[in-house]
């Protein structure tokens, strides 16, 4: 396959993905409006219609027949809704959301070069067709224009949709205004956009019609029909400062506004000058548009659409995340070049070339500054708001709660919090899982809730907020909480923990047993949360993101799951340590503190090494033992890595002045205290070298099952070191502890 095709496919996928996301968002908003008994926002319906229309075109282009069929049928349904021929009910929304999921599957299939199976869509399509059958039209006596006098020439150019919106607005008692203005052709998109922004809060724009004589070829005069519930004065206010004038459309049986100039001009379809018409007619010559509204095409609306499209395209660029990875890699390598320059600088610092050395130093510094700038810039580009995932959650909550027959309110805050795109993507499944658990096991049935004196509608709150260079995402429900005794029983019954350790555990420890592999309590499994894949998977997912997950619960009040995540994985801070002659990097976000101890401080309890730290017992694990490292001959790899520039380590040691023996002549050992959730573990290393920003690189598929290693990074001078996987090491140490095996 040529890379050109790949590229086109990738672009298709990302564009389609975006469209599906928009569709989902619109549908959710519409469903919310419906549930709240409010009028649906016609713009949302129209946007959804357009989204599906684009999907149809795109998937047709890529030969995805099933997907295209799906879009086509869905388009008919949405068309009926937007034209007011069909009033959506809750089950209509079920169908629509089902379509969003089908599209998701279609895109996944397309990524693998396939399409949906006919069987996957056939049943859905037939249900959709039934639902799309228009309702019997309401009987209308008059023309539906409520006495407004519209010129036949105007009515003849309105699309079916525009005409429907016009009637609908009049029916709702809105006043129709005619706005007129001249727009500079060169900047017509901006001009229209600005009017749109001003008018939108006070009314609905029904149509744009070219008018006037077209004497000046560099401007286009437009009549804009607006429906509004606001008085004329208000509309004039919003367009103040522009050349646009506002007049009400005359209406029979009512006193016309005295100040209004009679609208004598007949809007004409006549010759919009070239630059505007060209894109309009060149637009995807869509047989589809004709299918959906067979009576006429919609050239006028498309002009406006084309204009907005142009505008948005000029402001955002879609980028494949792999390209950003490549850029990040390049920055990482520039960093290595920078390190090289620094060491060169040190070497020539003593030479006679005083002036040259100074100049070089200056240049290296400005390189460093620009490098930091570049790095931050790329990191920023990778950031996306959590909204992307949260939107999906609303859909899940809606679906699951309906099928469980529970009423659930999803309360989301902090959706604008930004995280690295990759993290946001990886967060989707764990969040979904937690939410399903909450609905399935957390929130009680309506009857139970009422008898417990709680509101019948359960609440799940999803919150996100940034704290320093971490983001905290929490999911809380107001259900019945978790019974830690039941957990303890299950865990002992399954042989995951022994009775004795259960006795020592705090309530919080017990709750966190939920995350142990094999803790899935099968008999509770339901279709929804399918406990078969347990919370341990969620935990692994979060740990893979260098995140920490914790659960807390109050019986009768609710359960809260909290995830703490780094903002990015692209660049992280790490402590560089040495063990048995090897160098490793330890991600700083798992490090609690570091200590300097002498071997005599180590005690042994039940064959395990521990030290006392602030009256608590801290388990130790020697990295050398975990990895079963043999001592190297002193010549092997004894080059100290670069990067130790006297940085303060957590624990307060200046990194470049660490003694290796105590005053008593005992060799010092260094303990890096790492933690996940409430678990603490002291990793024993030989040396702390320093602290450094590193770019973690994956080890690749072949080595992905390696335990205790999160990836690798380059420290300069072709020196690759392994990055330790803190959660993995803690887990391994705890698992070993459970079987009381001596280290």
């Amino acid at each position, binding site marked *: 396959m040529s890379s050109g095709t790949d590229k086109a496919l990738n672009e298709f996928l990302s564009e389609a993905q975006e469209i599906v996301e928009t569709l989902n968002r619109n549908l959710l908003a519409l469903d919310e409006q419906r549930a709240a008994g409010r009028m649906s926002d016609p713009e949302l319906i129209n946007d959804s219609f357009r989204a599906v229309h684009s999907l149809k075109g795109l998937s047709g282009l890529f030969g995805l027949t099933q997907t295209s069929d799906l879009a086509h049928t869905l388009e008919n349904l949405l068309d009926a809704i937007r034209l007011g021929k069909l009033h959506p009910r809750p089950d209509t929304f079920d169908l629509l959301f089902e379509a969003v999921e089908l599209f998701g599957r279609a895109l996944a299939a397309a990524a693998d070069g396939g399409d949906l199976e006919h069987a996957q869509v056939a049943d859905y399509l037939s249900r959709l067709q039934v639902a799309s059958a228009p309702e019997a039209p309401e009987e209308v006596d008059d023309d539906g224009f409520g006495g407004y006098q519209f010129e036949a020439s105007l009515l003849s150019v309105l699309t079916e949709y525009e005409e429907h919106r016009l009637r609908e607005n009049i029916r709702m008692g809105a006043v129709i205004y005619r706005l007129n203005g001249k727009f500079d052709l060169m900047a017509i998109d901006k001009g229209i956009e600005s009017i749109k922004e001003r008018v939108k809060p006070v009314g609905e724009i029904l149509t744009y019609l070219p008018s006037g004589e077209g004497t000046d070829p560099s401007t286009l005069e437009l009549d804009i029909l607006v429906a509004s519930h606001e008085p004329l004065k208000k509309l004039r206010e919003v367009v103040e400062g522009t050349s646009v004038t506002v007049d009400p459309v005359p209406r029979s049986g009512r006193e016309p506004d005295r100040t209004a100039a009679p609208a004598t001009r007949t809007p004409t379809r006549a010759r919009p000058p070239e630059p505007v018409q060209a894109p309009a007619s060149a637009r995807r010559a869509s047989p589809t548009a004709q299918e959906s509204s067979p009576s006429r095409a919609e050239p006028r609306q498309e002009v406006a659409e084309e204009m907005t499209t142009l505008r948005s395209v000029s402001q955002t660029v879609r980028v494949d995340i792999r390209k950003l990875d*490549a850029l990040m*890699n*390049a920055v*990482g*390598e520039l960093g290595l070049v920078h390190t090289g320059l620094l060491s060169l600088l040190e070497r020539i610092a003593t030479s006679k070339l005083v002036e040259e050395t100074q100049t070089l130093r200056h240049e290296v510094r400005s390189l460093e500054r620009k490098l930091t700038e570049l790095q931050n810039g790329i990191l920023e580009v990778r950031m996306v708001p959590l909204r992307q995932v949260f939107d999906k959650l609303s859909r899940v909550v809606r679906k699951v709660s309906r099928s469980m027959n529970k009423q659930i309110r999803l309360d989301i805050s902090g959706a604008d919090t930004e995280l690295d795109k990759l993290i946001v993507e990886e967060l989707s499944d764990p969040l979904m899982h937690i939410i399903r658990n909450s609905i399935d096991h957390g929130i009680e049935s309506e009857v139970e809730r009422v008898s417990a004196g709680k509101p019948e509608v359960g609440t799940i709150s999803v919150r996100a907020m940034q704290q320093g260079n971490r983001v905290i995402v929490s999911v809380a429900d107001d259900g019945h909480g978790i019974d830690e005794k039941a957990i303890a029983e299950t865990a002992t019954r399954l042989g995951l923990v022994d009775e004795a350790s259960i006795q020592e555990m705090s309530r919080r420890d017990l709750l966190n047993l939920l995350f142990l592999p094999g803790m899935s309590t099968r008999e509770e499994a339901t279709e929804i949360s399918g406990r078969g894949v347990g919370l341990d998977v969620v935990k692994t997912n979060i740990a893979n993101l260098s995140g920490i997950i914790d659960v807390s619960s109050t019986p009768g009040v609710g359960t809260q799951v909290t995830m703490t995540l780094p903002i990015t994985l692209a660049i992280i801070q790490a402590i560089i340590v040495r063990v048995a002659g*090897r160098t490793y990097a330890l991600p700083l976000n798992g490090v609690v503190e570091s200590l300097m101890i002498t071997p005599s401080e180590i005690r042994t309890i039940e064959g395990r090494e521990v030290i006392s730290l602030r009256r608590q017992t801290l388990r130790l694990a020697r990295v050398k033992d*975990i*990895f*079963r*490292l043999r001592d190297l001959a002193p010549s092997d*790899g004894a080059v100290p890595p670069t990067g130790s520039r006297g940085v303060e380590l957590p624990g307060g040691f200046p990194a470049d002045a660490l003694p290796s023996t105590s005053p008593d002549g005992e060799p010092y050992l260094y303990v890096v205290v790492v933690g996940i959730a409430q678990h603490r573990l002291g990793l024993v290393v030989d040396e702390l070298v320093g602290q450094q920003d590193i770019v973690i*690189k*994956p*080890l*690749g*598929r*072949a*080595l992905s*099952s*390696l*335990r*205790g*290693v999160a*990836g*690798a990074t*380059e420290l300069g001078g*072709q*020196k*690759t*070191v*392994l990055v330790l996987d803190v959660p993995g090491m803690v887990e*391994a140490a705890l*698992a*070993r502890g459970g*079987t009381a095996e001596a280290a």
Partner: protein
Amino acid sequence: MTGRDKDSGRAPPTRARQLATEDTFLAAYTRRRAGQKHDLEVLTFRLADEIYGLDISWMREISKLRPITEVPQVPPFLPGIVTLRGTVIPIIDLRRRLLLPAADASGYTRILIVEHQEEPFGLIVDQVLKVVRMVEQQIESAPLPGGIDSDFLAGVARVEEELIVLLNLPTVVTFALEVASR
């Protein structure tokens, strides 16, 4: 190729002269791209005293030996990883992988960077020789050098009186790591 070549067997001086450089490899690769048709093009290299070959469509590049970072708890034929232009590449010691006697690296030692299912691997070989073109008929599933797991072999080809053991890359780079017991 001259008769003298054949006669001189595997004496190092002669071998050195016909040593394929990165350039010759590249040239051969380019020619292939240009559409000259051969059934098979094989990069040959030396391991212990045998000549081995890998289909060049698997080849990505040839790298000089560089410091290898040890990875814990892996089979002995995996000495570790290197980073090449930002990508981490697991290194396979081909001698150990094929259960041949171990040897120290020499000035001729190279890492063949190959690709299997879009994942790169590095294979340590004693010496890179040249690119040999052959047709399918030259490949036999004939006598195998003792001790080598036949799964690793794609066949044996006789080209200009020399026996080339063709390796089957997918099995060479597919292995299970012992997963540390809990």
